[in-house]
């Protein structure tokens, strides 16, 4: 993926946001008892929407005129994608199944394991278990006990 394409995709997104945001101001009522000088709930948002759409168009033109387009360095994109997929699963299970501490242990352990270069190393596994356990104890002591948060 290159930066030009990404910019254009995002700008189409902001343009769309501007239009939807503008349209949703139509449902706002003004009060019958409003005093003179009251702008109403919709004025400032409509102003913002118009500015956003104008800036988006300007930026799209600027992006299209750019000659060079650099490639976006994807780096360890596999790890990023893995993290992005695992996180909602973790949160979903936490919300709907519970067992926060066990789940968090598995999630944290899993992420650290995944991020290692050498996943077979026994030493790494041991360090991982120790690290994950101590982080969870710290979470339990600080958030669970001291701040009395129920997860």
């Amino acid at each position: 993926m290159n930066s030009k394409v990404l910019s254009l995709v995002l700008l189409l997104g902001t343009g769309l946001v501007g239009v939807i945001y503008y349209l949703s101001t139509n449902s706002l009522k003004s009060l019958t008892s409003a005093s003179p000088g009251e702008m109403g709930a919709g004025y400032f948002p409509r102003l913002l929407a118009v500015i956003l759409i104008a800036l988006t168009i300007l930026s799209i033109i600027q992006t299209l005129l750019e000659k060079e387009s650099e490639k976006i360095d994807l780096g360890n994109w596999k790890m990023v994608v893995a993290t992005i997929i695992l996180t909602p699963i973790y949160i979903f299970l936490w919300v709907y199944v519970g067992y926060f501490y066990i789940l968090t242990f598995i999630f944290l352990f899993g992420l650290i394991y995944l991020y290692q270069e050498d996943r077979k190393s026994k030493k790494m596994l041991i360090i991982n278990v120790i690290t994950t356990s101590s982080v969870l104890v710290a979470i339990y002591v600080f958030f669970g006990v001291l701040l009395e948060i129920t997860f």
Partner: protein
Amino acid sequence: MSFLDFDFTTLFTLSNLMAIFLGTIVGLIIGALPGLGATMAVIFLLPFTYTMDPVAAVLLLLAAFQAAEYGGSISAITLGIPGTPAAVATAQDGIPLARNESPGKALGISLNASVIGGVVGALCLIFLTEPFANFALRLSDPEFFLLGVMGLIAVASISTKGEMTKSLISVVLGLMVGTIGMDMFTGQPRFIMGQLELMEGLGIVALLVGIFAIPEILRVVKDDLHTQFASQASNLSTKLTGKDMKRIAKPSGVGSIIGTISGLLPGLGTVAAAWFSYIAAKKISKSPETFGKGNPEGIAAPESANNASVGGALIPLFALGIPGSVGIAVVMSAFIVHGIQPGPRIFTKDPTLTYGILYGFLLTTVALYIVGRLLTPLFARILVVPNSFLMPIVYVVAIVGGFSATSRYFDIWLSLILGLISLLFVLSRFSIAAFVMAFVLSPVIEVGLRRSLLISGGSYSIFLTRPFSLVFLIIIILMLMTPVFRKMGERRKRNKLENN
């Protein structure tokens, strides 16, 4: 009784000192957690104060408040994740200095500047309560509106590097997100997309975790997973040389004054304080071109400002009984639970207690220095941990910390969605700093404008007839003209050279 007759033995009791140190430690830790700031620190500690004696109870909260303002810079400098909106300004130079030179030095500057700011704020609170409170009363909606606009111009002018249009889009998006929630003037919900959780607006903690912590963690996973931020422990020392101290003295002084004044004003508070002083420090610096590349002055100014703003924010509370921010309102509730009513008569009604709290507040800065010196190296040390371990830990702690602020699952989902969207925006070089600043200032600007016009009956002359309003308007015009002047100056210089 005046402030000189105070019997200091009533302050130096074991319970007071313990409250101060405990508050400082907890405040520092909560402030350092991504997303959680001073407000959350005092909210978390409030239930503990119900059973304490009044002075110790209030000092516990104030110490935590003070320490959390500094703590916010720790995650900004070490991890590149600003813990509070104010620390976004600190990150501008904090991150480059930490990455390129020494994380210890960056943290040391932040700590010393924070303590200077805290002391100045406390001294203003003790000695200048009345003039400052009178000044605060003279500023109202027209001034807040103009200061809000000034803040936007300030942040837009800083955060652009050849991407002006994108920065402006970030500003407008931030203002838009800031309008989500109930409209105060008509009582109607706006843009809540059917989510009742959004009725009071987007939670700042969920927002910060989403747009700073998650994208930054994913970026490190993408680019620097198999390295670590710091390899040796030697550059983790937070000790500063005399030369460094001398260098940060001036920006810290400027930051402290701007911070104290901004603290007086509700809504603007620490965020605007940090950015205004960053800009001011750049203007008076001998080397403004190194700002944004790791200039110590760029750390000292916002850090001293956000701590000074704590003392500033307490001035209207003591003088008028008016809390200027959510965090200060929580502190005020600790007063009330203990039967103390903050307000104009607090100095005459309960002098021992009042001066105990004021001098105790000065002591919190001492505690911040001591605790900061002891704990900061430990925080700096986490940079030695390889990223493949550090990032998952920070990720989980950010999610858990974000949840703890409201105990709402909605906020975790919100953070996650915001995180993924902002990752794309970061990759495309939109300005996240501008977005956050605009988000925080959005209600200040909209409410300020609408209320000004409501009071004036729809006439814009209200911005011209008020003295401070007029001054701010002129400053705004000058700020907008600066680039034009600079270009004209450059052209004249070039013409001269060509003529010679």
